[in-house]
């Protein structure tokens, strides 16, 4: 089986090499989002004056909370935001106590989801000139981020929110399917937004000198996003191999279909390593991170990618059609991305959500990676978690191979 695995790995790598678009997509989306984030928390100077921003959240939706949470981040050093009731805010602004008052109108979250115009109202202190401007600029960029994110994934979030509104204690299969279909749309739309070069031109001018702190928090999540895209994408190859008939042929070869599967995972680890290397190198360069942790970080990511891949392959094999497999893996990947810190780092998420996120495989991996990058843990300390992850991976492999050779590979 081991020799079969090596040949199968080589075979899958050369197949992957013939499909560079997939690689570009797995890399492109995270890079795009990374660029947007860098923009949002971009160059703000060395020791900027802090603008006092009062925030009146009349909406109180999940999205507005998220938005207020972003503003309240310590890393966003330009702003010192404080939540206030609306009338108190107006009063304090009048008294000259703050640079600006941000009013998040009721229905803001809904409006964002529905892609209808919704005005964030910023009342500035006429007595000050620069500070309100900083507040305004920062807000504008943040709004852009929210806007683009909504552009990319909005329909799907909307669909999910709609669905969840009607959800009882346990969602029916049909509801799960509908949510899954909605989630599935994300990936196709993301593809669409990668294409216009307009965005790239926009970001190129501004992304020159990114800040250090906040973007570092985003980096591990972004790498894991690429790995999850890769794992869901490549796991579809199980169905391709089945429809091409190669799985059946492998069943009657001496190395067996287990060898073929092991090879696919080995190839996956290599690909995940390459993806991680590219993203981490870009990140290390722009964010001025220590280069010496890079090799360990890449190994960590490669193994994470392998584990995610075997998990996704197993899920694919549990479904009855390629379409169902695609929907289910995407439906699992998307929430994992959300709570696992790929869209917003755990530090910016509501506490409860962040706590859940740490127990997702990707969220856990993100946390370890972040500690490594910020040098909160020494590379050697990752050895035990790494071995643990390998053990989990092997267990998953054993289970998935069983499904594969007993059932999945034999079906026509």
């Amino acid at each position, binding site marked *: 089986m081991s*020799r*079969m695995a090596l*040949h*199968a790995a080589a*075979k899958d790598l*050369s*197949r992957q090499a*013939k*499909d560079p678009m997939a690689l570009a997509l797995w890399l492109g989306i995270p890079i795009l989002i990374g660029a947007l984030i860098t923009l949002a928390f971009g160059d703000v100077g060395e020791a900027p004056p802090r603008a006092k921003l009062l925030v009146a959240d009349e909406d109180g939706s999940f999205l507005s909370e998220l938005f207020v949470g972003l503003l309240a981040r310590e890393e966003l050093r330009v702003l010192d935001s404080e939540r206030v009731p609306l009338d108190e805010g107006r009063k304090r602004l009048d008294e000259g106590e703050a640079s600006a008052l941000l009013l998040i109108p009721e229905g803001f979250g809904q409006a964002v989801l529905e892609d209808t115009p919704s005005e964030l109202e910023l009342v500035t202190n006429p007595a000050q000139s620069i500070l309100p401007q900083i507040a305004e600029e920062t807000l504008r960029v943040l709004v852009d981020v929210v806007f683009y994110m909504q552009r990319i994934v909005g329909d799907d979030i909307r669909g999910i929110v709609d669905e969840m509104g009607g959800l009882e204690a346990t969602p029916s299969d049909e509801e799960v399917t509908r949510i899954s279909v909605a989630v599935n749309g994300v990936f196709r739309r993301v593809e669409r937004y990668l294409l216009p070069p307009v965005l790239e031109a926009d970001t190129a001018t501004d992304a020159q000198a990114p800040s250090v702190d906040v973007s570092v928090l985003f980096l591990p999540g972004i790498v894991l996003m690429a790995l999850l895209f890769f794992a869901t994408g490549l796991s579809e190859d199980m169905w391709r191999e089945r429809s*091409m*008939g*190669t799985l*059946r*042929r*492998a*069943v*009657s*070869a*001496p*190395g067996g279909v287990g*060898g*073929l599967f092991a090879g696919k995972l080995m190839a996956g680890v290599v690909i995940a390593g390459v993806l991680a290397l590219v993203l981490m190198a870009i990140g290390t360069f722009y964010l001025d991170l220590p280069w010496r942790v890079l090799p360990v970080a890449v190994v960590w990511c490669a193994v994470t990618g392998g584990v995610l891949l075997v998990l996704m392959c197993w899920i694919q094999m549990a479904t009855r059609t390629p379409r169902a497999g695609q929907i289910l893996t995407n439906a699992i990947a998307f929430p994992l991305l959300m709570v696992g810190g790929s869209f917003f780092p755990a530090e910016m998420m509501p506490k409860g959500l962040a706590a859940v996120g740490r127990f997702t495989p990707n969220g856990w991996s993100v946390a370890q990676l972040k500690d490594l990058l910020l040098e909160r843990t020494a590379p050697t300390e990752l050895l035990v978690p790494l071995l643990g992850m390998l053990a989990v991976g092997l267990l998953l492999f054993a289970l998935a191979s069983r499904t594969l050779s007993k059932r999945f590979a*034999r079906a*026509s």
Partner: protein
Amino acid sequence: MIDVERLEKHYGSFVAVDDVSFTAAPGEIFGLLGPNGAGKSTTIGCISGLLEPTAGRVRVLGKDVVVERRAAREQLGVVPQEMALYEDLSATENLRFWGAAYGLRGSTLTTRVRDVLATTGLADRAKEPVSQYSGGMKRRINFGCAIVHRPKVVLLDEPTVGVDPQSRVRLFEMVKTLVADGTTVLYTTHYMEEAEQLCDRLAIIDRGKLIANGTLEELRGQVGERDLLQLTGHFDAAAVEQALGAVDDVEVVQVEPDALRLALRDASSRLPALFDALTTAGSEIRQTTLTEPSLETLFIKLTGKELRE
């Protein structure tokens, strides 16, 4: 050498292969002839290890395919009915991978791959991705992938379905080369001309059961020297039986209200007399088909239906 002993394969309560036994010897092409759904692929699947037999025993070169899986598989080459190729890889890459999967390495692998490319006639397009091949070319490379490792036993499952004449000739040549080298070949098909042309020995399978088994001569002997006459129109069973009882050497194979099948010698010269007898018996004849003795007639005789339905 393939030894199939009282093989059964059930899908739930459905019996796809029912008590099938046959032996295919080295250096011979053993044909498994039967219509679609007869159980040919299921039988092949049980031999190749793709399917678990419900009952019975299969041995390849004396090795039980269930008990000594690996040993049995190493000597086996399987040409599946459906294509089993990496469409995104070239012929060479496919052959190299499957050769390696059967344990070939280094220069042996390279030589074998080159040989197979030559015998399949694909050498000049070996670098192209398989997805760009015609149906016939895919069939050839599908065959090639099963024989890179020079197996002693080759299973071919309807390898000529949807194939252009040129590829078909090439595939036949490849099969004949294999047996000339002493390989045991099991060849399934629903084309009886193919079976007649290619196979040394044959089993006919229908609805999971073997209904005939022997050399081509033995099977032809079962039909006798008689032609098969098929008539459509309007027939009364009792009247027909009675009328034809008086005519020498005519066997009523099957009689239905709208169809009649007869086996008889020298049919063409005796048609007028037959028609007379039938019309006198109140039959109405609309169409007649005369078939010379063949596997087709044997199949019809045994099952009461045509092979290609």
